[in-house]
């Protein structure tokens, strides 16, 4: 009996393995941030805050600063809705802090959300920091499909290049605790 591997089965296995391999793992302290590319904001003020030149898209590690806080959220997630005022207070506290203002940047990524949906979330909760859509779940898959909300704190700059310093699932916790953490990390990461 002649045994021959059908060509389509080989191709299918390859594609299946590729699909599984492309799914990212959950961010962990010490890892590098996955290669997350986001659409460049149209607003010049937002590009200025993030230190980005005009372009179509950018990797999150290109954001200017020492530390990046990312909130992974969804407009459709009740916990993210409840967390929105707290996330706003965190951004405001960072902006009000002389040592942190230029060193720490903060963004939100709306998994499964369209541009319309993140804009509605921004308007509904008067969100102060930049939000980005992840309509086709590309970012969500790259970071291990974490549940929302999820917070990532990563080190920026050519040396650290997105080294993850802290992660947290669910509520960001007390503002004072989060700010103390950022102050410690900014101090540790200082040249």
């Amino acid at each position, binding site marked *: 009996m002649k045994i021959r591997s*059908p060509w*389509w*089965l080989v*191709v*299918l296995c390859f*594609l*299946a393995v590729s*699909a*599984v391999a492309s*799914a990212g793992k959950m961010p962990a302290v010490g890892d590098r941030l996955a290669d997350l590319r986001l659409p460049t904001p149209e607003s010049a003020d937002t590009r200025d805050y993030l230190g980005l030149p005009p372009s179509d898209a950018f990797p999150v590690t290109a954001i200017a600063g020492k530390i990046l806080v990312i909130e992974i959220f*969804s*407009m*459709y*997630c*009740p*916990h*993210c*809705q*409840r967390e929105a005022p707290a996330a706003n207070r965190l951004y405001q506290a960072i902006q009000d802090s002389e040592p942190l203002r230029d060193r720490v940047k903060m963004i939100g990524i709306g*998994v*499964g959300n*369209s*541009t*319309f*949906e993140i804009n*509605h*979330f921004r308007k*509904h909760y008067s969100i102060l920091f930049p939000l980005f859509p992840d*309509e*086709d*779940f590309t970012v*969500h*898959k790259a970071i291990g*499909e*974490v*549940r*929302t*909300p999820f917070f990532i704190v990563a080190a920026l700059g050519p040396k650290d290049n997105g080294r993850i310093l802290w992660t947290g*699932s*669910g509520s960001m916790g007390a503002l004072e605790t989060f700010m103390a953490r950022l102050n410690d990390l900014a101090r540790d990461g200082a040249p």
Partner: protein
Amino acid sequence: MKSSRRCLALPIAVALLSALALCAPCLGASLAMEGMIYDPGPLKPVDSELTVKVGDPAPPFALPSLKGETISLERYLGRRNVILSFVPAAWTPVCSDQWPGYNIAKDLFEQYDAVVLGITVDNLPTLFAWTHQMGDLWFPVLSDFWPHGETARRYGVLRTDGTAERALFIIDKTGMIRFILVSDINRRPDLGAIVEALKTIHATGAK
């Protein structure tokens, strides 16, 4: 024989790859429902045939709501545009993350004189427990449990397993269907598409 094997190869390959592509985003991502969602895996995107089309009069219904009322479509005639949001079933992925989004879009809908009616084929106790996890929903949640899925059937969105499609119908103040969107059951429809349709209906419909 060889050609029949080849005929089978393509659908099998497509089915497997579709399942791989769908498995991630079909899961409910919110912590609010963690540990409570029954995941049936990727489902056939659409499993029913519409019995109505844009321009038809909307089939009437009267269904029990979570607040203890019976809500009929008729009560909104001449007063409000109505968004019927059918979702497949309680405690399933995607559905559990859909209505909480509409919960913060009240102002968008009201801007166009529209109300949302959320409908599933579940019974009221199940809907009570499920929607309780979403916070307080501002819109009526209706049970199309008995006769099972009768309203979904009249609109042609009752699936063969007794659940409903993930479907949206917008009915204007004259009772006419103006917009239909039967989504892939594994995907959530974009809020922007609903608002865009409402804008057109509001601009061209009875005030």
